[in-house]
């Protein structure tokens, strides 16, 4: 009975989470699509429309990309740190042996974020 109940709860939670993610993604897509349209309606005959679109795309790409990269990197590094801390808490004597692989793991995860950072810097330089 308990298992069924918790399963149902989990299902409901999963549904809710999926719905929230869907709403967030839809909002982002709408925003991305809507802002240039609004601009185009306001100053449709302005010559810099295409230029604005390009700059808009560059700025959104750099900002969103950096945010997503930081999000993923934060999750990954959080898992690494949590596992290492748990290990150290269970066996404080072995903390020296865990520290070095943890630092290397953190650096390898971080480098993926840094690739995005460099791309974001390039994009930002083009605006």
């Amino acid at each position, binding site marked *: 009975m308990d298992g069924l109940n918790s399963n149902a709860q989990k299902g409901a939670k999963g549904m809710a989470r999926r719905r929230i993610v869907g709403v967030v993604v839809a909002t982002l897509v709408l925003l991305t699509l809507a802002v240039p349209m609004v601009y185009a309606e306001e100053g449709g005959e302005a010559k810099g429309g295409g230029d604005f679109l390009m700059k808009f795309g560059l700025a959104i790409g750099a900002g969103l990309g950096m945010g997503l990269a930081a999000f993923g990197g934060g999750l990954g590094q959080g898992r690494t740190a949590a596992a290492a801390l748990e290990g150290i808490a269970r066996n404080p004597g072995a903390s020296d042996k865990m520290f*070095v692989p943890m*630092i*290397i793991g953190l*650096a390898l995860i*971080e*480098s993926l974020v*840094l*690739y995005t*950072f*460099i791309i974001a*810097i390039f994009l930002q330089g083009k605006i």
Partner: protein
Amino acid sequence: MEHPFTWFSLLPFADKVPIHVFHSCLVFLMLILVAWRIRRSLRGGKDPLIPESRFSVRNIIEIVVQAILGQLHAIIGHGGEKYLPLIGGLFIFIFFCNILGVIPGFVPSTDNLNTNLAMSITVFLVYNYLGFKEHGLKYLKQFAGPVLWLAPLMFVIELLSHLFRPMSLSIRLFGNMFGDHMVLSIFSGLVPLVVPIIFMILGIVVSLIQAFVFSTLTAVYIALAVSHDH
């Protein structure tokens, strides 16, 4: 990248020499002075095994070299001390370069991709050379994967992953130092007092960790190339 102010821009030859080359040479000069000081201390009459009594440059460097040696033995195993000149040199050079960037008006030469690519391509060539020297042509077996019929597929994947190593080494160092330096300069521009201290402490920590990561990954690559497990 534009820096707000550097001492370098006051020099008469500022427009002829690239800024990172000048700062690398500055670090070279500093390290040569340190090495000369230690050499004089070792050669000076007394027994070189006896450490100096005061807290001196030689004692600091001996602690650092001892720590690097311990790491090498932990990663590579016996015979790890053979690679101390390369890895210890990389560690000390990168650390001094990074820490120079925390001093206002100086630029870390590691926030330019050219400096880092030079170092990481050296590492790439060295570990492949060491692998060939250790195993001969059998070194290529490391690229071929566990079973023979997978070899054509594994070879391409391993080759790509090996080619990506120097790139990821250099981009990691570049991104960290560049980002750290930029955060520091932005916050010093916003609030010139007190607040930059936090980011300077962060800069010192990042400098140490990045130098450590670069040299440790070099040691790991060398250990993978010369190991006999495969």
